[in-house]
């Protein structure tokens, strides 16, 4: 049995990777430990959120599946940050986990170049530093030209519930031990990270009347550019709070918390701390917010967002019952912390291919990230690059000024990972341009070029984009009469604070713009932000110049005495692909960049000389 690409792991990274490969016409095998857990959501029952929503929109514009899946599985939709400016609006939806899994399953089954196999992968097959396949516990060697590892938290996963330690990749699933060890033997460095999840409660045991209600948007916005109007009966979430009583219980049992007893060694995410961490670090805070989120429309389980913990089971129950509305709550599943191996991403290229083992790609939590959306984005990029490599085409690397996905991967290959990496809008220096409303404008061209979308789908998307551009041109060309300023360009009027597109449209001499709701929104944002975006683009230009100067992967940093010692070490470790990336490394100073430029020019001149 021989495939072009084997994807190991059927989570959010693995599914997108496998689908992208198959859609680009390469024979793909997706291997998962259990079919029933394809695209499972082991933590939050939600997709999107701040900065993550933008990632999903980008994945969708690139032909990924996540947006379509959540549009089908969503049971509550909200556009976050509506009170802020439109550049930071982020879609988020509560997901019916079972429906999400089914949606992804049927997408995979519908793909003709994609085969799904249940099995455990225990090692790699390699020849001369090049991957040639994987070793399966059940089927022996499975051959492939490219292998994508999307292992999630499975590599040497170790779960903690109080003093109890259970080897496992997720609740109820065994860990993957052999593969991580084999990678380590092949010279791939690995380190440990930690993450955690809260307990799930039995829905019927909760007194929701004691909680605040949180509803979805009245008019839900879909994630996918390919979804028309969403028709969905939405389900509410509920909000309650911890209090002094809860904190007292935690403090009294803090010696039994693996996080504080020294039992957990891996670093956890500071933006998603456990409740015991919050109570200890922010002891002055009298209460912490808790969101009660359904795991599905008909699910009997409620996710207790805000109460992530690895305290012992008896303490979890006591703690839960100290919260208003949860006095009689029953725990369906206990919260736990999990430690797992990841492979620090200074060892990969921006294509997500390993530097050490050619043809091997890493995507998702194995790169030290956290989040379904971050995983999906990487899976997609790894899949596209594996397929491009098989076709002998130029690799696909998105820039920081182009997409959140570009920011994500650039951060991975230029920063030390000290905690699970999560996307934030503040990481994106070109945030005003990287909006959820224009992901199609930014990225659709790639999807078309790579063949990730069927013509029927991208034609509709391009049509919508063109209608926005036509309307934009009209606003820039047509004059409108304004009481206090005589005649002025419609676009200028729209730039005024407090003036809406509707206000301007009424004044247009050639009548209203023929645009759908989403397109109107996108147009209005564009015009209102144009001045700011232009300013931001000027910096982006400088940035792009630095990005265009490539550095050979085998550049002999150690031989350049003029580099500072710190710069030499960081450059040697990360081996940046461009001068821009080099300049972003911690410890690399301006003088070091200047020195590099001198040597790069020299190398460039030599190359030119050889050609001539």
């Amino acid at each position: 049995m021989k495939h072009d690409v084997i994807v190991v792991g059927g989570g959010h990274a693995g599914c997108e990777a496998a689908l992208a490969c198959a859609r680009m016409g390469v024979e793909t095998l997706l291997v998962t430990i259990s079919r029933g857990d394809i695209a499972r959501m082991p933590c939050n029952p939600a997709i999107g959120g701040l900065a993550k929503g933008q990632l999903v929109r980008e994945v969708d514009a690139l032909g990924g599946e996540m947006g379509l899946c959540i549009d089908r599985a969503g049971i509550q939709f909200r556009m976050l940050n509506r009170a802020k400016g439109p550049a930071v609006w982020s879609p988020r939806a509560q997901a019916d986990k079972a429906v999400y899994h089914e949606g992804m399953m049927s997408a995979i089954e519908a793909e003709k170049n994609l085969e799904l196999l249940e099995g455990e992968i225990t090692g790699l097959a390699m020849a001369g530093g090049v991957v040639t396949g994987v070793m399966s516990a059940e089927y022996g060697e499975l051959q492939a030209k490219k292998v994508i590892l999307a292992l999630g938290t499975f590599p040497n996963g170790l779960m903690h519930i109080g003093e109890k330690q259970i080897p496992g990749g997720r609740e109820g699933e065994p860990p993957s031990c052999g593969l991580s060890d084999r990678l380590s033997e092949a010279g791939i460095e690995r380190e440990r990270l930690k993450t955690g999840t809260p307990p799930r409660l039995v829905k019927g045991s909760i007194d929701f009347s004691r909680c605040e209600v949180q509803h979805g948007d009245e008019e839900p916005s879909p994630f996918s550019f390919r979804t028309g109007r969403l028709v969905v009966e939405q389900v509410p979430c509920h909000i309650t709070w911890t209090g002094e009583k809860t904190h007292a219980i935690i403090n009294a049992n803090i010696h039994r918390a693996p996080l504080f007893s020294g039992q957990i060694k891996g670093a956890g995410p500071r933006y998603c701390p456990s409740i015991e961490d919050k109570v200890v670090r922010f002891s002055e805070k009298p209460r912490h917010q808790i969101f009660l989120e359904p795991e599905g429309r008909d699910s009997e389980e409620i996710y207790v967002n805000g109460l992530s913990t690895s305290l012992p089971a008896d303490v979890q129950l006591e703690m839960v019952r100290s919260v208003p509305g949860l006095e009689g709550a029953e725990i369906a599943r206990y919260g736990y912390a999990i430690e797992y191996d990841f492979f620090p991403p200074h060892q990969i290229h921006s294509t997500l291919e390993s530097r050490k083992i050619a043809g091997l790609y890493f995507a998702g939590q194995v790169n030290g990230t956290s989040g379904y959306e971050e995983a999906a984005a990487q899976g997609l990029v790894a899949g596209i690059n594996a397929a491009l490599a098989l076709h002998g085409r130029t690799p696909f690397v998105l820039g920081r000024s182009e997409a959140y996905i570009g920011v994500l991967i650039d951060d991975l290959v230029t920063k030390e990972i000290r905690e699970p990496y999560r996307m934030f809008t503040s990481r994106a220096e070109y945030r005003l341009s990287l909006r959820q409303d224009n992901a199609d404008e930014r990225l659709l061209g790639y999807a078309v070029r790579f063949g990730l979308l069927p013509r029927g789908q991208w034609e509709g998307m391009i049509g919508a984009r063109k209608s926005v551009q036509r309307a934009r041109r009209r606003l820039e060309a047509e004059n409108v009469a304004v009481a206090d300023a005589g005649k002025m360009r419609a676009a200028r009027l729209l730039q005024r604070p407090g003036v809406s597109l509707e206000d301007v449209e009424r004044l247009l001499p050639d009548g209203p713009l023929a645009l759908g709701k989403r397109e109107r929104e996108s147009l209005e944002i564009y015009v209102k932000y144009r001045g700011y975006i232009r300013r931001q683009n000027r910096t982006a230009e400088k940035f792009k110049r630095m990005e265009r100067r490539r550095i050979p992967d085998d550049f002999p940093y150690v031989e350049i005495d003029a580099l500072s010692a710190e710069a030499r070490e960081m450059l040697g470790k990360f081996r940046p692909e461009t001068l821009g990336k080099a300049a972003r490394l911690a410890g690399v100073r301006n003088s070091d960049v200047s020195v590099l430029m001198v040597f790069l020019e020299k190398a460039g001149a030599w190359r030119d000389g050889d050609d001539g």
Partner: protein
Amino acid sequence: MHGDTIVALSTPPGSSGIAVIRISGPDAIGILDTMAPGARAWKPRTLHNRVLRDTGGEMLDDVVAAVFHGPNSYTGEDAAEISCHGSMQIVSAIIEESIGVGARLAEPGEFTRRAYLSGKLDLAQAEAVADLIASETRLQSQVALEHLGGGLSKRITAIEERLRAKLALVEASIDFSEEDIEAYTMADLVAVSDETRREISELLESEVAGGKLRHGMRITITGPRNAGKSSLYNALLGEERAIVSPLPGTTRDVLRERIHIGGFTYYLEDTAGLAEAGCEIESEGMRRGREAASAADLILFVVDAGEGWTCGALEELESHADRNRLLVVNKTDLVPGGGEAAAGSPAGELRTVTVSAVSGEGLGRLREKIFEFTANGEVSGVSRERIALNIRQGMALRRAEEALERLGRELGMNSPAEILSLEIREALDACGEVTGRSAAEDILEEIFSNFCIGK
């Protein structure tokens, strides 16, 4: 090849007869042309005497300039060279004008780098150039550090911290809006924005005084004839410059040399001794000496320990009461008891150092005193915290000032958080050019350490 055009002073900073400013890059000649219309048509490599004017038509200086067409120039690119009068104000004005019309300030070693890159390439040269760039950059930051004593950087760091704290609030309101965290208030942001802008304006105002500190302060040696002023001058310079003779009245002109003490630069001036006018030349020398002293940042008033005070000397000392003065009692080697008498008497509260310029005794103490004057801000007119902006820093701070002005406007219009963030980031970024730190990097750190984040 490099795209942009750079400008910099090529001669050492400080007052001198002539200063040479070099412009290199595709727009070099065009930039000179805006200041000296017609320069585009000049015959290359030929000197032209012209009056440079800024875009407003104001005269910058009367200069000699030449243009060079690449590759026949030092850098191999199109280039222009301007020899102007060697005052730092003139130099700054010409450089800023060049920047205003499209050049950018050269980085350390950049001319050399460009020269190298357009010339022949071999490994040894590459290494030599790389070493040069690295050492120039390091030296510059080292010198900056010494000169500034960390004062400016401390001030700007405080500004950065304040802005960063506010940016963290604004960013947290965007990235963690779903969570129960402290929100920023418009009033609070307005207050910080105004305060910071005021502070930056102050720093920018100190630029002139700062320039003096950076490019050298004047120390004038004066005092009665034959008190050993020239000996002291030479002793401080560490070499023979002034004509020293046991005969009184040997120094007639004002002599000037640059010295460094504790990382600061000074122009040390030796003047003719003060006495009843004996002849024409002598009195002309005295007039010049008085003139120099009246403009000095610090006067070293030298008296002979053995001679003590004469009425004329005391009168002379008092006539400079508006300057910073240091009494130097010289020739202690010739007087048993170290000239206590001379030091103690009519000079009153004046700070006094006893030295022997000949034996070198006390010179260290004198240097320390001069340094103290400077460090306390008495000489420079600026305190150590309000110190010394060079052109690059001045430009960066102006950029910060502009960003804060825009921030003020946006706050007035109730603009959304990401626009406020854009301006605060720009201000921080500009400050970072002075302190050498990247601003945005630390924002998440700031958020995580201050807020309880995470549902």
